[in-house]
């Protein structure tokens, strides 16, 4: 069943790091089975859906975001691949899950984090794939 960590376009995902949490992780990084990395945010709460945005990131870009060199607004409004995956997860089973690639300009600017909001996880850089497996399992 499709959910935050099981997306048709991306496959099954494993969380790498959680950056913010409110009952569930609401800002986190994850990787899929071929080690593509994503930064993910709970972007909007609508009457029938939750909207989640997934930006594919290189390891270097993710470390720049984590360490506060790139702010969270740019992380999602200026994605490296030029597109985001918009995932709509229904509140109930009576509505369908859907996901599609969009460009940032197709989204209302409100869904992006505020400008000049930065993460502060730069004390321990993320390293290459082999260690990511251990981090995700830890």
């Amino acid at each position: 069943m499709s959910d935050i960590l099981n997306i048709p376009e991306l496959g099954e995902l494993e969380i790498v790091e959680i950056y913010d949490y409110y009952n569930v992780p609401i800002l986190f990084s994850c990787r899929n089975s071929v080690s593509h990395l994503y930064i993910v945010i709970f972007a909007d709460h609508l009457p029938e859906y939750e909207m989640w945005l997934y930006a594919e990131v290189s390891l270097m870009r993710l470390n720049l975001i984590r360490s506060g060199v790139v702010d969270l607004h740019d992380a999602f409004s200026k994605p490296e691949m030029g597109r985001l995956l918009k995932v709509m997860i229904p509140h109930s089973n009576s509505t369908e899950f859907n996901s599609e690639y969009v460009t940032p300009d197709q989204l209302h600017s409100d869904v992006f984090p505020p400008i000049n909001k930065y993460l502060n996880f730069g004390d321990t850089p993320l390293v290459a794939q082999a260690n990511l497996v251990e981090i995700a399992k830890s």
Partner: protein
Amino acid sequence: MKLLGSHLDNCPPEDAEPASGIVYYLVRNNPPQEGDFIPGIEKHPSVYKHRPKDQICQAHGFSVFKDIEDALKIKEEFNSLKDTEPAVGELTPECGVIKNTPSRTRRSHHTWWPPDGMKIWSLFKIEMQ
């Protein structure tokens, strides 16, 4: 008193303390309703498939703040929480247990494990700012 998560080993954790004091919880309804209190493990179970046991335990509880500024800040920073308001509740030991589970930016974040079946939404109200 059977608490949420207590079917898991070491959940709630041994260092959780009897619930007490004022806490703030973000709700979408005024007055708060049962639907405002869905634990993460029910809302998004797949998130916890491979997570450590302590995080799975945490997901059976609820995120509350001891400092209203933390509640207001997370609401401001996440568009997905813009339609919520901080509701205030005063907890007592009959309300379960609570543990400080701070993040780097939200030092007053706590996880609260109430008794299973308690109408916890009735403990909270939205106060006009």
